[in-house]
């Protein structure tokens, strides 16, 4: 697609493409709500410009599951009560997936540190950490021969 090179990525996604699953909450890189995956790594779409996506592979929450079934991280969040108002959740899910990609068996402390850039005001994080821990176990089981 064509876009002005200085268009903020979060606006490109939400307004130009109608992909409103990516949220904006602070517009300054403080909260993580606008997290997307760029070439598989979590990035803040409120701090990126369209030109920075040239030739990159972008994944938002809408395309995250790749099929009708939920991705294990999404399923774990839903099953373990990690979702309340849900406004942080698209960013949180993508950040958690990125964390598990880099560290498939994180400790609870590593999960807390890994998600410290994504603010949630509802949950107190307890069930988010539980959900990521459970997702890691499923992930681990699936990788066994």
């Amino acid at each position: 697609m064509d876009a002005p090179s200085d268009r903020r990525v979060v606006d490109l996604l939400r307004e130009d493409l109608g992909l409103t699953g990516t949220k904006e909450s602070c517009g300054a890189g403080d909260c993580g709500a606008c997290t997307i995956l760029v070439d598989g790594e979590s990035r803040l779409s409120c701090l990126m410009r369209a030109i920075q996506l040239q030739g990159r592979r972008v994944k938002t929450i809408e395309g995250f599951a790749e099929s009708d079934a939920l991705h294990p991280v999404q399923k774990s969040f839903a099953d373990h009560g990690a979702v309340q108002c849900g406004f942080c959740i698209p960013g949180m899910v993508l950040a958690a997936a990125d964390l598990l990609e880099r560290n498939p068996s994180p400790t609870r402390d590593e999960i807390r540190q890994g998600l410290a850039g994504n603010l949630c005001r509802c949950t107190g994080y307890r069930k988010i950490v539980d959900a990521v821990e459970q997702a890691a176990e499923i992930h681990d089981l699936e990788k066994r021969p």
Partner: protein
Amino acid sequence: MLKSARREIPLQIGTPVPRADAQDKVTGREKYAADFYGEGCLWAGVKRAGVPHAVLGEIRTEPAASVPGVVAVLTYSDVRGTNRQGVVQKDQPVLVDTKVRHCGDAVALVVAENRDALGKALDLLSVALDPLPGVFDAEKALEGEAPLVHDDRSEGNLLLSGRHRTGNGAAAMDESDVIVEACFETPRQEHAYLETEAGWAQIQDDGRLHIVCSTQTPFRDRTEVAEALGLPLSGIRVTAPYPGGAFGGKDGVTVQTLLGLAAMHSGGRPVKMWWDREESFLAGTKRHFARMYYRLGAKRDGTLHCLDVRIYLDTGPYDHLGGVVLALAMEHAGGAYRIPHVSLNGWCVYTNNPIGGAFRGFGVPQVTAAIEQMVDMLAEKLDVDRLGLRTRNAVQRGDRNAIGKTLVNSTALMECLNVLEGHPLWKHAKQWKAEAGSFKKRGAGVVALMHGSGYGPVVPDVANAKVELTREGKIRVFSGVVDMGQGNASTSLQIAGSILCQSAEQMELVLPDTDRTLPSGSASASRCTYTFGNALIGAAETLKARILQRAADLVMAPARNEMALIPGGVRHLVSGRELPLAAMADFMGEGERVAVHHFRAPVAAEQFDVGPGLRLHGFPHTLFSYAAHLALVEVDELTGETTVCRYLAVSDCGTVVNPQIYEQQIHGAVAQGIGFALMEDFSTEEGRIGTPDLATYLIPTAADIPDMESVAVQIFEPTGPFGLKGVGEIATSGPLPAIANAVADACGARICRYPMTPERILKALRGQPKR
């Protein structure tokens, strides 16, 4: 392996069913108010005053209006209604017409094709403001020479004051053997919901104004917008999607009236307004700043004897819900204790600071911070066990609480304290403290909590539930109360599904909408599932009886007690014959398939002599939840940094309908309380905000919150739906005093200004005599 067919599981009370909204929220499909755009959508934005107190002069709109892409520039002269909004007092202008009363006041509204044009126009809007001296402290604002925030009020800067006495009041203090005294100041707290204030509006083809907004109060918003803009109530529809967090900050109008005005000048095009974080901090409401003077006296044996309290709340320039917050603060000022002689005085005062308003806990976190530290200070002075002192004075059912109200409903504080006392975290606290490393001090803090739910004795706390058997044979629940994240919509489905024996897959939900659902009050006051749930039980039982009766008629059974609802249908228990719900829907008439039920919550019978003001604002409540909390903290003596290592919340909120949602409420409230205690420092200087964003106003991250434990003491509350009581707010009040008591336990430092930042802790440590 055989693949068994997946069976639908009927919803039941007490099971941790995953929330109905989780699926759409984890996939990004859920559409929040902030996600509404639409064909030809315009942007609306506000010119904020930027000064705390000033007389409004000329507004020059031409330079802004001539920016390409600007559709309208609107001022107070374009508002055809009262131009006033507010929940109790209508004291807040939609657009400033005489004077500016705080930095976040809205002075003009711009509608533009896009955000670039909007930004340019707002920059070019020139507003003449003649500065006035301001008033920035609640106590000083009551002094005779203080500048007046509202010129036309006979009581000057006083919004509401209250006075209450029991026994011999403060005169009984002299009879105490031991007296402790302190002054506490709790700061403003910012809600910091992830979805800042947002909405969308359009004049529909039929001429009606449709507003979609992030709100806790769609029905009340409709009334406020109608009056302020001069529209008939029937000419407005308010739709409330799931808000992306609210916590009280969306209890009342934010963008609604401004959006309505913008839509009336957009040529029929939809208009969107979405405050950015800085505007949200500037114009949104905050937890009231409180200054509280406390004296507490006890007998030598530890029996509480006398309490003398003065409370000053800073409501900023507008009431919002300041009077109600004061009433709750006064009611809870003595905590969950029996105290025979009490003197309470409170003042809620106008200033030129940011607006004080509703925030989860609603005045109770402030006074609980005070009373629960007073109890610890008393224990220290009496040299008795802190938990034992609480158990000795804790209220039980049938007791009069500190304001003299007889507790007629379930009251399980004692059970909470007992569970806490037997919990391993408390039993091993001494050993854990002894294991602190070098330059670390560890401490444990306990608190006892109570929280009243509902609107109090005057304002009717009502809900109207509506349930439908759809043509397709599904059960549709029309929710009149907003679910801002607390999960009450899912709980409603669980309640109706349980009564009608249907699975989650059979249930449908209609979110609050003034055109589709019935008025059921605000999503606030720990009332949502209590009040709406009671109404819903009535509606679901009515529908159930109708379905069973019609089914009995069809199978020629003598009575409906031979029929039972089963997932997806009805079974005749004698013949075994089954009828699908879709078939039942065909047999039933349009009106028969919909059942409604009204519920009004019980109120206190006591008539306290507190004057009409406090009573109207909700004093006293009759139904209370209770809790006992424990915080284990570690203080770094070199840096002053305090870490909450473990946290336990034992709660009496009646029986638990959904353990998962119940825990979510406790965890979230505790986390907000930890932020309030340790880091959330909303600073202002002469009304100007010093912490305008999330880089300067810090809220807890995943790394700041420990693994909390929640234990539910499940005592049945006879007036509650399936025995439940409100769980939404109570846990917010625990962390500040629990952590402060733990810090004092760790290093002897008693800090009375919050949050307890490393700087304040270090200062307190240095002020300590060498031990």
